[in-house]
């Protein structure tokens, strides 16, 4: 048998169902691959081979006993480490939650378990999913498998790299401003951000609640469809989840694309777009034309405000969502002995100088506990966003920033509504450039934020979007193509991506890891 880790999930599933392959063999193959490659890539924060093999064996037993143990039975899967897994550490790539074990599974994890998937481990991410390079993780470094001196993208860096390097056939990421699509583009894999509310957020550690959405990463659109079908659906435990039935995505894929109307987003081909990316995307548009799609030009006129809008709304929500990490109830807490000793020292120092004002302003032990815990437990990017959001929500600034941003958000959504009256899907790049060298933007947050130029709008508008491999740069780095559709058009997106992949071979290339 050829290298199992090279197969698509759909192919592996048919082998499992035909009894030509056991889940134990398959899981073992992936664990071996992780063993061999992950030291170099750093996709996983944690794996538990014993636990995975135990699940695989149980799946095999059930299948042998003639049961039909679920639509993903026996297939390994990787989980981004901001998805709660019962009794297993869920860190969000942060010191704050380094030892946090939730007593519950995320709804998505529950659904995957019910479907028979075998969790392989938890993948690395930017701290609390804030970032586009996975460099802000406090707990590990992740490299781009195509060039390990480059970043893998983020925040779902581990989720994308484990697919690209054959360490898992499927993985789950989360996308708040591009966190599935951008690393998928940088790593040459498929990543789908579903419609807001399509997948339950229950158990996804919140970054920006009105933007966060869980989605699949895989090698092919077909694999992504297989996975989305399992994780999508209404959840009574998430008030924002949509009460809409889940289509059979995989069966829709096969229908021909004829008559598909694709809109090329004018604004996505302006300043800042790398020439190689532009030519790969334009070439992809030609591929669609050949597939029978009608290509027109559409405008999303408020695109230019998307980054500014996003970087007000997301930090505002983040500043509130992350307030709970205060060292009181769970998670990281600063060393209290040091805290009290320091306070005592400061108090006696101030008493000696008779500076009553400064003495009065000295933190109470409780306030110092909060400040010190958060100072030590969060990394720079998280603190930056907490400060941005706290500032923007403060009295006197709220109207100018948060409320204004909400208004622009509505206009951005209206742009999409109008575009989708003309076309079925819009097409454009995922990122302005291919993956960049590690460390090159870490001290330039603004440059990093501008990398989200084409992805944040879909989150602001709540519409689904998919990233598919569409070429390579001269330096050998993958380039991604983005398709965006109206709410609940995941079937359309997957179908369009599927036909593209039938015509192209970009997704079949593999990075040389040895």
């Amino acid at each position, binding site marked *: 048998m050829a290298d199992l880790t090279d197969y698509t999930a759909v192919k592996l599933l048919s082998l499992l169902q035909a009894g030509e392959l056991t889940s134990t063999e398959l899981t073992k193959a992936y664990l071996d691959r992780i063993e061999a490659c992950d030291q170099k890539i750093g996709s996983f924060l944690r794996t538990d081979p014993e636990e995975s093999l135990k699940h695989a064996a149980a799946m095999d037993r059930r299948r042998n006993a003639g049961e039909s143990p679920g639509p993903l039975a026996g297939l390994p899967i990787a989980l981004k480490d901001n998805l709660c897994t019962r009794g297993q550490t869920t860190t969000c790539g942060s010191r704050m939650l380094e030892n946090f074990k*939730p007593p519950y599974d995320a709804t998505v994890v529950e659904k995957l378990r019910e479907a028979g998937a075998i969790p392989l481990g938890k993948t690395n991410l930017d701290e609390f999913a804030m970032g586009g390079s996975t460099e802000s993780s406090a707990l590990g470094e992740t490299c781009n498998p195509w060039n390990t001196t480059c970043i893998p993208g983020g925040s779902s860096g581990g989720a994308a790299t484990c697919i690209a390097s054959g360490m898992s056939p499927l993985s789950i990421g989360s996308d708040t401003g591009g966190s599935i699509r951008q690393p998928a583009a940088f790593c040459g894999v498929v990543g789908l951000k579903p419609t807001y509310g399509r997948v339950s957020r229950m*158990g996804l550690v*919140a970054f920006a609640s009105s933007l966060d959405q869980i989605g699949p990463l895989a090698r092919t659109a077909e694999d992504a469809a297989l996975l989305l079908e399992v994780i999508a659906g209404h959840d009574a435990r998430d*008030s924002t989840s949509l009460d809409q039935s889940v289509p059979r995505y995989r069966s829709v894929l096969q229908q021909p694309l004829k008559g598909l109307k694709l809109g090329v987003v004018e604004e996505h081909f302006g300043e800042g777009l790398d020439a190689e990316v532009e030519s790969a995307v334009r070439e992809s548009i030609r591929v669609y034309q050949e597939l029978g799609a009608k290509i027109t030009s559409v405008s999303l006129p408020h695109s230019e405000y998307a980054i500014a809008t996003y970087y007000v709304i997301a930090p505002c929500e983040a500043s*509130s969502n992350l307030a709970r990490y205060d060292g009181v109830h769970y998670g990281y807490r600063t060393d209290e002995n040091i805290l009290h000793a320091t306070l005592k020292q400061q108090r006696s120092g101030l008493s000696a100088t008779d500076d009553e004002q400064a003495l009065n302003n000295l933190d109470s032990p409780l306030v110092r506990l909060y400040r010190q815990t958060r100072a030590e437990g969060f990394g720079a990017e998280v603190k930056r966003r907490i400060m941005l959001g706290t500032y923007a929500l403060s009295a006197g600034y709220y109207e100018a920033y948060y409320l204004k941003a909400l208004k622009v958000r509505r206009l951005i959504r209206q742009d999409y509504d109008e575009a989708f009256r003309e076309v079925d899907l819009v097409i454009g790049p995922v990122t302005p450039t291919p993956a960049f060298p590690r460390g090159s933007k870490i001290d330039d947050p603004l440059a990093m934020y501008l990398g989200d130029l084409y992805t944040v709008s879909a989150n602001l508008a709540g519409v689904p979007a998919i990233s598919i491999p569409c070429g390579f740069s001269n330096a050998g780095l993958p380039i991604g193509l983005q398709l965006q559709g109206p709410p609940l058009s995941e079937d359309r997106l997957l179908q369009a991506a599927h036909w593209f992949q039938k015509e192209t071979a970009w997704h079949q290339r593999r990075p040389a890891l040895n």
Partner: protein
Amino acid sequence: MMSDKPYKIVIGLETHVQLLTETKLFCRCQNRFGGPPNTQTCPVCIGLPGTLPVMNRKAFQLSLITAIALNCEVPKFTKWDRKSYYYPDLPKGYQISQYDLPMSQNGWLEISDPQGNFDSKRVGIIRAHLEEDAGKSMHDELAGKADSRIDLNRTGTPLLEIVSCPEMYSSLEAKTYLTELKLLLTYLEVSDCNMQEGSLRVDANINLHVDTPQGKVATPIVEVKNMNSFRAVERALDYEAQRQYSEWQEAGKKLGDVPKQTRGWDDGAQVTRAQRSKEESSDYRYFPDPDLVPVIVEPEEVEQVRQSLGELPAVLRKRLQTDYSIKPYDANVTVNQGPKFAEYFIRLAETSGDPQQASNWMQQEVLRTLNEESWAVDEFPVTPDELSQLLQAVQKGEIDRSRAREVFREMTMQGNSFQQAMQSLGIEQVDQSALLQLCEQLLTEFPQIVADVKAGKQQALGRIIGEAKRRNPNVNPGQFRQPCLDLIEQK
């Protein structure tokens, strides 16, 4: 409003009411007072990462009922906001509340004083909104320790915050408002209003409008907290008015000169004490909670709730006066005792056929017994139908008032039926022939009385009646009098 003081007191009240739901506002934990610390909690209410709130519809329904009973407007659209502050008993670092679009606003509550100390008036309700409660912090500072303990059982229980307009001008008005509000909530069955258990909490905002040669001047507003009974509210406000007036005379600070102050009522010392100054007033950074969807309330739903409200205290007071012809004062006392008491009265009035007598019995014998025994109305052992038999016996003159009270005591204390009580007290109906026989005998024994009565001295009859009652305690003077007179007539 009569006042001999050179100032007017202005009071606004903020009342927090815990709603009687089975479960908490945003999770499925039990909403119940007591229980060992941190046993009524779940990942949602203790704010673990990744958890999400889901609104309890029942809590919203109870709020809707209350808002409509308070004559509030109910907007079609309402939403949830996060109120951010750090405190150990607030595990998420924010409280889910309602900020700029509360679920109800612009209502009123009518208050009046039977003694006429102030004219009946409508106190405006600025808004009533729903929010989740925080947990409880217990600070143990004994022996130099600085331990704090947190109990999150209360975290996430539904609270309705009712904010009045600053339209009460005496501590009595404030107390009356609270009494009427509590009564209304009790009739609506939305809260048990137990101040000791914290299911009803009151904060007051108070300042003075002082008459000066330059016109009226408002003094700085003070928020008073820690008032654990209505009496405490009354006393705290009286104390605070005097304190503010003295301070005004000494310092002359006007509204706006100093930051708003918070003071706590010390019930032991009967004074208010300064708590923290709101100088570094917290910025709560309210913003819409993205984890929850707005609530849409259709006008039809509001109308439906309005129709199903049942009889509220103000209406019931009027009905008792018109349907049962009892005095306004009596109607007031009856209704203020709560819906079960009023219900008991109505049943008693109906079955006995004598509402005024029923009202008298309720307010004297029944109420006294309830107070003496510390019984709630539903613990009272005598049903209205049993009590009605007693009242009817009195009405027909079968027994007199003092014997009736003995029977009542027998019924309440021994749990006897009317018949059993009559028997155990040896009370039986004296039949007509026995009565006449006794009368004949007495008239023979006391000829002088016959003569006196014939001579027009009716009061002489009293002696015969007294004697009759001595020989047979079951003789009812009312029933004895006429036959006796008839017999004298014939002589």
